[in-house]
């Protein structure tokens, strides 16, 4: 049921009437720049790029496209890593960056209301100015839009303590592919009227509806935060330390790890004095009031020492904390500088299986002669095995793709997931049925058909 009609001249005229001629681009240069997102190796050119400014304009575009059976691919800033916004069969890329109004921050209701093109950091900063916190902080939060965050159900560094984007979506206004505008949820914490469609739209990857307004939950901002780091001889010790921390009644806000490959790459690039002999580096943090932070940092330190941490540091100042976090921040820049092509994945396993998973990744890398560094969120089991290679080396590219196939199979075997926060998109669609099973995938298709009878929204992805 994949729609493949190309938009004709008549459709283009009507789209221009709907959103204004200057907000419809069909020049080859523009199409080239909307043929890719942040996903390596995936591209597909659209026929048109359309920039609506309101819910009404989005509805008009969708009605026209649905009538003409032309695919529509919604897009924010294009930072996603699973090719979810890459057009597979032409059509219209619907860019929502012009809808970037932050409509309200209510400290009475603890909600923010905004359009989908607002960037995550803009909301976070506006909330912070009122003493509030919007916790989801995906790595791309300076660039990514909230519409994209909700559509991909982004995670981030604070997921263990605060949850993921899904946990902060109270209400959405969305336009169905056939042009109707619906609302689900709103400013209420409790609201069980009807199926939970707003949650269904979280992570729907632009295949069910186009969200045009979001009502997001905010929480009071913590007073302050503390940060520390610990080295371990091998990864198993670090993994056991994580389990011990959680068993001690502490729920840290940050619990990140780097494997040996990542430690080496960061030190080579940033020269910040990391111990490159260590098998793993754990970076931890807690937020809250001063008393809580002191108590929890102490407990985390004890847990790390009990599991054989070779070195332990607790930041004494915010400058020192920034220095410790720099090791984590520098991972991707360091790895990506090693080779022109960087493929960043996000296989996820239960926390208790992190060591098994990372050892498997390292074994696969050794066997295939690939350079794979693994870092990620130790607190929630979300791993980022990252391979760097030269795209001109076809054999290596093929080897990397096969390696990820093995890694995803292992993740599923360990009761994990093929994707923790990057989404299925194009890249992991072939793996989806392996994780969910045939009946589940068939149900996804029926849900997709209920929303999108003509299959115009982001065809060839989830639910197709």
């Amino acid at each position, binding site marked *: 049921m994949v729609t493949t009609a190309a938009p004709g001249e008549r459709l283009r005229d009507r789209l221009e009437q709907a959103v204004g001629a200057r907000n419809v*681009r069909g020049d*080859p*240069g*523009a199409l080239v*720049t909307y043929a890719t997102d942040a996903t390596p190796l995936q591209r597909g050119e659209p026929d048109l790029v359309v920039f609506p400014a309101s819910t009404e304009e989005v509805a008009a575009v969708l009605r026209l496209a649905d009538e003409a059976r032309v695919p529509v691919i919604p897009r924010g800033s294009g930072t996603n890593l699973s090719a979810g916004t890459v057009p597979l069969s032409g059509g219209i890329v619907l860019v929502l960056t012009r809808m970037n109004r932050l409509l309200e921050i209510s400290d009475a209701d603890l909600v923010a209301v905004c359009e989908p093109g607002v960037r995550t950091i803009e909301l976070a900063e506006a909330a912070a100015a009122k003493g509030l916190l919007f916790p989801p902080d995906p790595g791309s939060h300076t*660039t990514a839009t909230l519409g994209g965050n909700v559509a991909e159900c982004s995670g981030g560094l604070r997921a263990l303590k605060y949850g993921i984007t899904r946990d902060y979506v109270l209400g959405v206004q969305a336009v169905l592919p056939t042009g109707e505008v619906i609302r689900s949820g709103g400013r209420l914490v409790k609201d069980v009227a009807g199926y939970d469609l707003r949650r269904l739209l979280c992570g729907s990857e632009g295949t069910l509806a186009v969200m045009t307004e979001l009502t997001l939950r905010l929480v009071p901002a913590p007073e302050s935060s503390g940060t520390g780091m610990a080295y371990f001889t091998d990864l198993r010790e670090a993994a056991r330390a994580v389990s011990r921390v959680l068993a001690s009644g502490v729920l840290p806000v940050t619990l990140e790890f780097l494997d040996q490959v990542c430690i080496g790459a960061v030190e080579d690039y940033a020269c910040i004095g990391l111990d490159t002999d260590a098998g793993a580096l754990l970076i931890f943090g807690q937020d809250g009031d001063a008393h809580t932070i002191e108590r929890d940092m102490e407990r985390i330190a004890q847990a790390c020492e009990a599991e054989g941490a070779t070195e332990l540091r607790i930041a004494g100042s915010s400058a020192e904390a920034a220095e410790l976090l720099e090791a984590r921040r520098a991972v991707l820049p360091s790895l990506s*500088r090693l080779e*022109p092509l960087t493929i960043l994945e996000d296989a996820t396993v239960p926390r208790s299986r992190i060591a098994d998973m990372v050892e498997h990744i390292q074994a696969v890398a050794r066997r295939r002669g690939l350079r794979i560094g693994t870092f990620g969120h130790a607190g929630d089991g979300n791993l980022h095995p990252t391979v760097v290679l030269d795209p001109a080396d076809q054999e290596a590219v093929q080897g990397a793709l096969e390696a990820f196939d093995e890694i995803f199979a292992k993740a599923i075997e360990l009761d994990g997931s093929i994707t923790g926060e990057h989404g299925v998109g194009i890249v992991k669609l072939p793996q989806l049925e392996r994780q969910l099973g045939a009946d589940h995938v068939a149900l996804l298709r029926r849900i997709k058909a209920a929303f999108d009878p003509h299959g115009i929204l982001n065809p060839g992805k989830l639910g197709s």
Partner: protein
Amino acid sequence: MSGIFTPELLDRCISCGFCLPACPTYGLTAVETSSPRGRINLMRAIETGTLAENDPTVLEESSFCLGCRACEVVCPAGVQYGALLEEWRGRLWHGGRRSWRLKPLLWAVNRTPRVRALGLVRRHARTRRANGKAAHLMLGCFERVLYPRVSRSARILAPELSVPPAQGCCGALHAHNGELERGNQLAAELGDALAGTIVTTAGGCAAHLAGVLGPGRVRELSQWLAQRDGAGEPGNPRGDMRIGLQDSCHLRNGLDVYREPRELLAQVGEYVELPSAGACCGAAGTYAILRPRDSARVLARHLDEIADAGLDVIAVVNPGCYRQLEQGVRRRRLRTRVMHLAEVLAAYGDV
């Protein structure tokens, strides 16, 4: 058409998109095509032959870009966007395709005698010849004509510098406008004429010279003063003037110099950090001449902030920004004075 870009430079981009919010033209349009990642995709398309190098969108975007290099600072992969842009313009703007507005400018500064002749009419700083001292003040080409008081102020602040008159243009103007080779050659000539450390009052020139001669040979004035005198005494201003700063893009984004001018200004007045102090003012070398309307759109936010902050003085560290802000302030009829950092320090500091 391949062979325009150095493959290693173009390969660096991992398409993460982190550059988008840093880009002033993306800020104006919210269109990916007018962003650094979008432009790199255009370059790649030219390189693979998907797009012709004279495709209208390609030509438009190569010129719409300010070349401010704000994208380089936020790039996790270390893409040298400024270098790619120079290669792009070197290809596209050569010969007949260059704007008629540019030709007389480039001609005027292409030979040292012409630059000297330009300077004769204005009273800039000068010493008869290089006096063997290890450091020299660079006069600049257009700066010595438009703002001769800058070099005179710099001379007062740094009497240890010699100011030989036999010096031409640094070539930044050429390098940024499609004549990369000539731009590099001029920088090398200037490096020969001013053996030793070159101290400049123009952020754009500092970055270009540092790129060709190596950063060890070049100091922007605030860097020179800060290194000479050590840290000043912050929080002890001698006046109650409210002073803001407009960074020079290439000084900030190319050479990472932005603390020094702020610390110096804080010694003579109440330093006010404008929200857009670090963002391009729209002067962008010849951009204000080539694309006056877009340049004014980029400038508008800066003027709003200057007015809102009620500044007495807005300091600049580059002649292009000087001219841009002077015109903007005049058109808006703001009471704020535009002054070069050197002028502010010479007039209000104790030298």
